[in-house]
């Protein structure tokens, strides 16, 4: 199986190198999509051996993820793992995430940060809960951790996915795609590490509300 890791990154020069170094052990190729960073994110990723694709303009997490998925398709990948560049995810969970795809049980696997004992701040739990509710209202599908960037795409999902939302709404759009194309879903509990750095980079409440409005409006008017 040709497994590729896709890491969307924006101003992550201090973290992205470490993530690439660790992920390389589990996949054949690492693609870092530098989403118009103003720092040395691209150089750090390239130094660690990643294939770097640079957006000239900052286009959002969804746009960067879709660029990475498209690049993986063109490279002939069968399976893609997407993960954040801020060391929030434990790359040791990659084999578990790939398990349902390798066994032919799922087309897409969602990581679940709430499936096992993790120290997650209350405000994060609240935001994610609200994100899950909005996602359910927009798509009719309940995913325990719909807003997590750590996912694995099998062959069918990788071939069919076509994300149009540029920002963080893309997580909900992926759930919508599961309903649209009737992908089989897997969910795997993972470990998550929240640091002051990752918490500071998270979405604000206002941004979350804006994202939720966009999702609902778009799902209705599409």
């Amino acid at each position: 199986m040709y497994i590729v890791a896709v890491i969307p990154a924006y101003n992550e020069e201090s973290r992205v190198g470490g993530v690439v170094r660790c992920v390389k052990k589990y996949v054949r190729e690492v693609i870092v999509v530098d989403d118009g960073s103003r720092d040395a994110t691209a150089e750090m990723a390239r130094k660690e051996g990643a294939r770097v694709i640079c957006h000239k303009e900052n286009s959002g997490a969804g746009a960067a993820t879709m660029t990475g998925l498209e690049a993986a398709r063109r490279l002939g990948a069968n399976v893609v793992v997407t993960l954040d560049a801020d060391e929030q995810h434990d790359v040791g969970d990659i084999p578990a995430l790939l398990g349902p795809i390798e066994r032919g049980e799922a087309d897409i696997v969602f990581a679940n940060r709430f499936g096992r004992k993790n120290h997650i701040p209350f405000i994060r739990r609240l935001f994610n809960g609200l994100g899950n509710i909005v996602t359910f209202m927009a798509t009719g599908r309940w995913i325990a951790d719909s807003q997590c960037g750590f996912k694995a795409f099998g062959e069918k999902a990788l071939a069919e996915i076509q994300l149009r939302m540029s920002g963080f709404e893309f997580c909900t759009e992926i759930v919508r795609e599961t309903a649209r194309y009737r992908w089989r879903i897997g969910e795997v509990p993972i470990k998550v590490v929240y640091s002051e750095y990752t918490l500071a980079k998270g979405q604000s409440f206002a941004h979350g509300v804006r994202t939720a409005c966009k999702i609902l409006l778009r799902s209705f008017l599409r």
Partner: protein
Amino acid sequence: MQLTPYQILAPLVSFIAILYAWNLWFRQKKNLWEVILWILFWGAVAGIALFPNILTYVQFVTGIKSQVNAILVTSIGILFFMMFYLIIRLEELEQRQTRMVRKLALREAGLGDEKDFEDKVDH
């Protein structure tokens, strides 16, 4: 039962909108959940047009009785429609820009394709 022009037009528009939603579903551009939401909305528009008495409760709650208020409510509705339209247009422009940024990035990475992103964009 004597029907006003609105009572004829609204159910007709609703019927076309519902047919359009089913069509999008069959072409896999909308999922079933979205189609159901769409049908509920347009069904309500048609229902209220044909049986305005449904609104007695709303009238009771909001107190909309005079013609001036009706004009105001209609104007707000038109403004909302224009706002939604502008939002959709803005999103389309944003998507177009994203596709250009992506196309350029992939080409520079040596992964360009002749039929780059003739993708299936919903309009």
